[in-house]
């Protein structure tokens, strides 16, 4: 409270105490089980924080409400919780908007206003319910730095983050970080083992999310598709023919379907984006901070133009492209709130390859999972870009029954062909199986594994029995 008073004294006008706008969020959730895809894990509960903004909306982290089956909101001045629903969620930037339909909820609550990106050295206050509790807790800290960093919730996205020494503990997640009476960020992640290092999602990312939602739909962030090498080597800069003192990063490759595809080429040097020069280490100066040039693409909405200045053929060239999002990257993210896709036939369980499937091998999956699966997931797009959109179908498990008990190959197996049909996705399995009039179903697998065969009539007969015996409610999860 004393610290809060200090902060308030810094503001010219008398800013109201934000703690009245901060709520405790209690979530009962149940996750899908990717190893047994028709099953859900037992219900557990998590606590988080949230805060009211204009429009009667509550902002919190996506990870607080992921896989929620019930969301309860508690005001600090009232005993009875309110039921909330998710209005929008963005797993790629760990933000969500909730709404409480009961109009009584917002009575006497003041929405918090969004401020701007704080600078290193600014004093900030975090509000929230660390470890739950009835009363809002606030802690003061200093903005240590502003940078681009990975968001652990999705596992693959990086956006702007602000590091602070204000304690951010479980339960703080989703709570506001306030400077000069305005929200400058949303507390979201810490670093295990580093007590004096908390991170919050700064306001530009929050605003990007809210602006994206204005059309009633969440589209996500653009993917630049730029795979670059920093030009810290003077020899490389000379080889590109760049004038002395020039900045820029060199393009190795462009991801299929991305923002710069068809516009930027391998070998180009990215000199500037939207007029902001890119340094040789791939950073730009954004206010006082040095952040990766990707931040400029990140702050675009899908469909907005992006101006790219490149060095090509010994001269500067100004190019323009349209910000695009690569949909297939969803399979590379941690998945929330979506049911795994699968197909069970005669005890053979098929799933598409995605990050969740690989995570069933544990945290060390890049080294621990089947090498073929890891190659498809991490490297195929780069090494065989023409196959980037292929969905790999994996036989993940065999539910044993007399009809398949002599199948000796061990899952996981990448399915190449079924009844002679090359699979380009899980959906291809259905016509490949149902369209077969032969005596046998023939499954051909990738690599050294070989093939397996089921007697079609026997498999068809055993199929419903297997579903029943193994308690599988639906043969298809898609």
């Amino acid at each position: 409270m004393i610290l809060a008073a200090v902060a308030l004294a810094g503001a010219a006008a008398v800013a109201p105490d934000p703690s009245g706008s901060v709520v405790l969020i209690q979530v009962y959730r149940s996750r899908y089980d990717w190893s047994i895809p028709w099953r859900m894990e037992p219900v557990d509960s998590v606590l988080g924080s949230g805060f009211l903004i204009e429009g009667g909306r509550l902002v919190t982290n996506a990870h607080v409400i992921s896989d929620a089956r019930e969301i309860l909101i508690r005001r600090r001045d009232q005993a009875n919780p309110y039921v909330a629903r998710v209005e929008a969620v963005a797993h790629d930037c760990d933000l969500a908007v909730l709404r409480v339909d009961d109009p009584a909820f917002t009575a006497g609550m003041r929405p918090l206003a969004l401020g701007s990106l704080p600078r290193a050295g600014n004093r900030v206050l975090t509000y929230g319910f660390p470890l739950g509790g009835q009363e809002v807790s606030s802690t003061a800290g200093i903005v240590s730095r502003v940078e681009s960093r990975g968001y652990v919730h999705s596992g693959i996205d990086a956006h702007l983050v602000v590091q602070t020494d204000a304690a951010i503990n479980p339960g703080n997640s989703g709570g506001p970080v306030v400077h000069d009476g305005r929200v400058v960020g949303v507390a979201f992640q810490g670093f295990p083992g580093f007590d004096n290092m908390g991170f919050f999602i700064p306001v530009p990312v929050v605003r990007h999310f809210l602006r994206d939602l204005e059309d009633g739909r969440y589209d996500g962030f653009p993917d630049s598709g730029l795979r670059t090498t920093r030009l810290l080597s003077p020899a490389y800069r000379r080889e590109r023919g760049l004038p002395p003192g020039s900045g820029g990063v060199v393009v190795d490759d462009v991801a299929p379907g991305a923002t710069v595809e068809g516009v930027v080429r391998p070998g180009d040097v990215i000199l500037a984006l939207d007029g902001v020069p890119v340094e040789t280490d791939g950073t730009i100066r954004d206010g006082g901070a040095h952040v990766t040039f990707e931040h400029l693409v990140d702050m675009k909405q899908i469909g907005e133009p992006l101006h790219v200045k490149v060095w090509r053929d010994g001269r500067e060239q100004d190019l323009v492209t349209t910000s695009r999002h690569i949909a297939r990257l969803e399979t590379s993210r941690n998945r929330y709130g979506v049911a795994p896709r699968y197909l069970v036939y005669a005890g053979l369980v098929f799933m598409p390859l995605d990050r969740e499937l690989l995570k069933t091998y544990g945290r060390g999956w890049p080294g621990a999972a089947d090498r073929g699966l890891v190659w498809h997931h991490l490297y195929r797009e780069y090494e065989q870009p023409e196959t980037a959109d292929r969905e790999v179908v994996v036989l993940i498990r065999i539910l044993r029954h007399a009809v398949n008990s002599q199948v000796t190959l061990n899952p996981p197996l990448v399915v190449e062909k079924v009844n002679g049909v090359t699979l380009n996705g899980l959906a291809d399995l259905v016509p490949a199986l149902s369209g077969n009039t032969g005596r046998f179903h023939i499954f051909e697998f990738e690599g050294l594994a070989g093939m397996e065969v089921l007697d079609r009539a026997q498999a068809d007969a055993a199929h419903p029995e297997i579903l029943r015996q193994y308690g599988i409610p639906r043969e298809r999860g898609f």
Partner: protein
Amino acid sequence: MASPASGASRRRGAVAALVALALAAAAGPAVALPPPDPRAGIVTVRVTGQDWNWRTPWAKQTPMTRILTGLVVPGPRLLVASPAFGNSLLIEVQKRGRQQRTPARLALVDHEGPLALLEVDDPTFWEGLAPLPLAERVPVSGEVTVHRWLRAAQFESTRAAVAQVRAGRHGLSRVGLLTLDLSSNAEGAGESEVVMAGGEVVGLATSKGGDVLAALAAPVLGQFLEGAAHPPYRGFARVGVAWQELQNPALREQLGLEPAEGGVRITHVLANGAAAGALEVGDVILEVAGVHVDPAGQFDHPVYGRLDIPLLFTDGRRPGDRVDLRILRNGERKTVALTLKRMLPEDDRVPPYVVDRAPEYAVHGGLVFQHLTGAYLATWPDWMRRAPPRLLIAYDRDGAEPTPEQPRFVILASVLPDAANLGYQDLRDLIVTAVNGEKVGSLDDLRRAFERPRAGFQVIEFLPGQATGRIVLDAAEAAQAAERIRDAYGIAP
């Protein structure tokens, strides 16, 4: 990758001859033979070796000495089953557990055993020593005794029980050889201790995991000695195929196999292996040299029962031998012949191990290039899980078959920071695809390509999807830096 066909031996005639020699040496041509004294046929072998440091391939690691057990065989020579002879510098032998050490020489080593034959020039060493007889066949059950010299002149004999006879791999070898699994409580065993039963040597122990002591069975030892006696030494054979089992009746029917016919289906044929040209993917192997192959990939051995089929290619056979295979191909039963082949680790695109030769490397402008090898990957603790994933894929998935253009994977292993490589200091473990526009499949390719810089620059391209796709060095700067980098990092020119 491919299940290496491999094997053991049933070479009755040759082994019998050796046994006769052994008996003669041990006891003379007497009619009533006293049981041989194991103490007279077992010695201590000290091997000092030094491995290369694969992270800094111009340097070696700390030397290590391993203490092994040696078996006296006719010659007289010493037979030892251990991978310790790779990169060995000094071999010493001690008899009767005494302190006095006598130098020995490596007469023959086969890491695909792993087996080594030693010679001792000092004739006094052999005084009081006599070969022990090798068993013609090994027991499939019952008790055996494990012998070794301990330090303080103590001879140790412990009981062990035969758990099973199987095809097993030993040391760094990829060849499955006839193996005895023993249930033993001998502490720290697995260093070539001599396993005996009924007065005969039945195996040499090579490793211990838990209570299970694995030993190379006597027929394998006999085959090695026989091969050593008839140079050139031909080694152990592999077929170079991968196969799948055919227990699934629907699959059998679909392939057109009779229920009792057995057989395994070929899923891959190594282009540089013995089966290349003889077998095709999809072939079903029904018989190997007249021996029926069951659908689980095993055969009925007259003495040892069911064993894995790789043994059919090594048991009594060696590289160069012709083997007839009865196969089913496209619905047709026919006989094909293949000539067995020895496949050494360097025949792989990613050699699984490298011994007795220095790591191959090239340093250019401080960039350290190597061939990808199992030895390099093994520098990571728990390497099969923790080494860089793309390198593990190269090893496991693409590592077996070299092609004429790509005999090896060349990697940028690390960077020795210097002004010539400014900006690249943190790069490591990247697979190189081309230098100056020329494809690189070996360090020789790399060196040749570096001799032809493009407009004064060395341009190195990498397999996409790694930390960088392409880097550039100034050719003149890199050349000038060579000596400076050698001095700074202690690399012999």
